[in-house]
């Protein structure tokens, strides 16, 4: 029997703040263990947390970006559980009043888009890391608290995804959205971005959801997808054999490619949430609302759609240009100088992004400004320079950041369309190449190409090829 797959995802994203959520320690990744710590983030007696306002505003930005409802006042709660990487043995999080609720994100599905509802967006502190020695006879474990207290955003969806493909699309869209909103660097390998899935199956058309299985320990998007696929098979088998799926938490074993039971619902931890008395509620007043709202960008999928609809870009081009926020910003900025989306888009896609890739640089290190790239696109669309010359101008712009006009003048790249300049060259080419003339007369079209080459060589590439070809045809026709 076919079952309907129901998937919900939790996204954990480390926020890109310079300092931790409750203290001034650095959030930098990769430092020697326990060097980015202080009495506050190691949870010593008597210390108190002070909210990093920047982190809160980033969380708020995400809530707004996903069109969440945002309360006028929010607060933090303690989530109590014991683990060595959590030195206070409680995590400061949000439970009773989240930063955002009831939002949504659109994900691309089968050429269209699908709305996934966001249950809530909330801010919490990350935990440290337990390190277990590889020696099997070791009688100790180590704890690195560099990550303890790093601001972590949790985004919880409703169970709106219906298969591993949608989950995959969600994760990619979420990652891009978080990059776009500039709240997280989203380096998966540095643990900036983590996902957890919950999966259930139900008979198609059933109103109730089936028993939900949560999967932990999935360290990459690929692992999430694999774990989902495994769970679908496992649960399908149980249901088809007439069994019942247990509501439980399972751990993904990447090497084995399987999930294993971690704890049942009955064993679920009671986190004993209560309002964090060491912090005061955060008031989200009109000023903060307006300021944070102003920093919310259009999300990539919406922008892509607009590029297609408003600018007439082909779907592929719109996708490439909108993929990275700064590239898309560059594009739109360039349009202010030259309002020809197709031409500007081509230059960005075919010249700029390619050169950036070759040179291994990002858009921040790019020398040409949007107006300069636009100016070149405009010049290249006229007959002032030819295509190879335009490519040459672009390469020089990448090296120097000089204006295209300046480069054209300096390099003498402007082409001539003046028949008075071109005619003597054509006449000389015809005079010098009687064989070509004979070929032309015997019907070989390639003779024109040959003569074109001669003319362009004499003009050192600056003759307008259309004009030159027209004159050659005319002169040969007279003979």
């Amino acid at each position, binding site marked *: 029997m076919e079952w309907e797959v129901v998937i919900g995802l939790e996204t954990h994203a480390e926020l890109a703040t310079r300092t931790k959520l409750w203290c001034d320690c650095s959030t930098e990744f990769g430092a020697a263990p326990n060097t980015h710590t202080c009495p506050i983030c190691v949870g010593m*007696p008597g210390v108190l947390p002070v909210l990093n306002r920047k982190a809160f505003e980033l969380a708020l930005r995400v809530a707004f970006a996903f069109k969440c409802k945002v309360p006028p006042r929010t607060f933090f709660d303690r989530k109590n559980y014991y683990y060595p990487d959590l030195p206070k043995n409680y995590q400061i999080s949000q439970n009773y009043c989240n930063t955002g609720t009831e939002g949504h994100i659109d994900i691309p599905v089968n050429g269209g888009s699908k709305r996934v509802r966001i249950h809530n967006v909330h801010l919490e502190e990350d935990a440290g890391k337990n390190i277990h020695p590889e020696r099997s006879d070791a009688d100790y474990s180590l704890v690195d608290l560099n990550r303890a207290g790093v601001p972590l955003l949790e985004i919880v969806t409703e169970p709106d995804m219906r298969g591993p493909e949608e989950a995959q699309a969600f994760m990619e869209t979420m990652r891009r959205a978080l990059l776009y909103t500039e709240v997280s660097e989203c380096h998966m390998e540095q643990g900036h971005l983590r996902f957890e899935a919950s999966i259930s199956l139900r008979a198609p058309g059933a109103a109730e959801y089936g028993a939900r299985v949560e999967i932990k320990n999935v360290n990459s998007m690929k692992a999430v997808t694999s774990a989902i696929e495994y769970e679908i098979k496992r649960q399908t088998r149980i249901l088809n054999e007439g069994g019942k799926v247990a509501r439980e938490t399972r751990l993904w074993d990447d090497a084995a490619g399987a999930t294993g039971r971690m704890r049942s619902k009955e064993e679920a931890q009671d986190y004993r949430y209560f309002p964090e008395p060491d912090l005061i509620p955060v008031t989200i007043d009109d000023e903060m609302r307006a300021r944070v709202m102003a920093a919310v960008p259009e999300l990539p999928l919406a922008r892509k759609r607009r590029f297609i609809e408003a600018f007439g870009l082909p779907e592929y081009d719109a996708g490439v240009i909108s993929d990275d926020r700064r590239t898309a910003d560059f594009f739109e900025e360039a349009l202010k100088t030259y309002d020809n989306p197709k031409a500007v888009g081509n230059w960005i896609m075919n010249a700029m992004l390619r050169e950036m890739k070759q040179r291994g640089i990002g858009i921040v290190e790019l020398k040409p400004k949007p107006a300069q790239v636009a100016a070149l696109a405009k010049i290249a669309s006229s007959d002032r320079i030819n295509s190879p010359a335009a490519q040459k101008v672009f390469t020089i712009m990448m090296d120097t950041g000089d204006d295209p006009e300046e480069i054209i003048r300096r390099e003498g790249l402007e082409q001539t369309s003046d028949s008075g300049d071109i005619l003597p060259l054509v006449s000389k080419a015809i005079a010098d190449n009687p064989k070509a003339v004979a070929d032309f007369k015997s019907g070989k079209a390639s003779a024109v190409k040959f003569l074109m080459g001669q003319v362009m060589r004499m003009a050192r590439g600056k003759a307008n090829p259309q004009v030159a070809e027209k004159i050659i045809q005319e002169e040969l026709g007279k003979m």
Partner: protein
Amino acid sequence: MELAQKTACELKRMIQTGQVSCREVMTSVLDTIEKREPVVQAYLRALDRAELLARADATDKKNARGEDIGILGGLPIAIKDNICTKGISTTCASKILGNFIPPYDATVAQRIAEAGGIVIGKTNMDEFAMGSSTENSGMKLTRNPHDPERVPGGSSGGSAAAVAAHEAVMALGSDTGGSVRQPAALCGIVGVKPTYGRVSRFGLIAFGSSLDQIGPLTKDVSDAALLMQVISGHDPKDSTSINADVPDFMECAGNDRNLTVGLPREFFGEGLDPEVGKSVKDAVGLLEKAGCKVVEVSLPNAGYSIAVYYICACAEASSNLARYDGCHYGYRAEGVDNIVEMYCRSRSEGFGPEVKRRIMLGTYALSSGYYDAYYMKAAKVRKLISLDYEAAFAKCDVVIHPTTPTPAFKIGDKTENPLAMYLCDIYTVTANLAGIPAISLPCGRTSSGLPIGLHIAAAHMGEKTMFEAAGKVERLLAEAGKWKL
């Protein structure tokens, strides 16, 4: 009269005018410690004598050069052992923190140092400030200087006993449900519980975070105002500290203003020792005679205060004390096989019985399925108690009643009956639940010579009015010859 017996304000004047040196003051206090400590046992740790004298000398040199020595210049001050002092072990009188030396100062300790005060030692207390007699200390038994067979009160019993025995000129304690005011009353000294947020909690080892406040224990009201002046004020390291100007408390204590005094009928009823009640009423009579208006007020929800307090404080404590697990610092059980055993045994061996009782109470109150019935309900009643006070302060400037139902009780009297011990705080917890400032000052003695404490509470951030009233009561009592330490 020994120098150690003088008040901080007197000594301050004498030091500044060159009548005495800081060395003489320090020597007198250290000699008193030597003499009385074998019985009183107020300190868990007194600092090295030579080092303290060297610091007194340094202040004297500064003073001789005409430099500013600070408003606490050279005064020997004791600090309760739940307030972190950099490089000086801070244990909360608990085995679980027996080896803990903080690498940082509490904001109050830093402010005392900046004001020129000299920390002379850390005082005994009920373990993690949980208790009303200091008998719950995991370290030692402190005795009431007025009667060594009796408790000094708690949980700041060490600080109160140190000041009452002149083993310190002033001291700091912490007050979650009465832990400064109740021992002050039982030891015949002055104790203040500031408005919640008036004094930074940074570096105070938390018991009930939403109730804890650090406050002074001193020989008179002016000394309390002096120490409050130093420790009050906004601290960016404590999000709950209030960003507001600090009035001149010293001046307030000297103001003579006729105030309206409210007597809450709920705090003069059943369970109140008649001698204590009479002493407080006599003091109110002096105020009335001096021109103050006296009205009866009501705190209708006060009857729930002990229940509400033990739910709120224990819930927070169950979470605050979770960090003592043997993992990162403090006591760790030997010979454990796994992490869960390490947690269980370290905590079982490290905490005393009262602390365990409260962790269990708090854990229960926060548990899934019980949260609404206990914690949420308590939070609502807490709000009602605040509103009761607001209504009372619409009719009067200050609320006066006894600090405790009885004077100091005998050592061991209540150790077998936790509930009887909890009821010691019946008149003090409401101020913590409402977050308002309150002071206890001695108003007389029982026929057997035990001190009696009078409690004055004022509206939120109303320390100014509180000190005005306390100063006035103190002057009237002195004129009437009712009190002398």
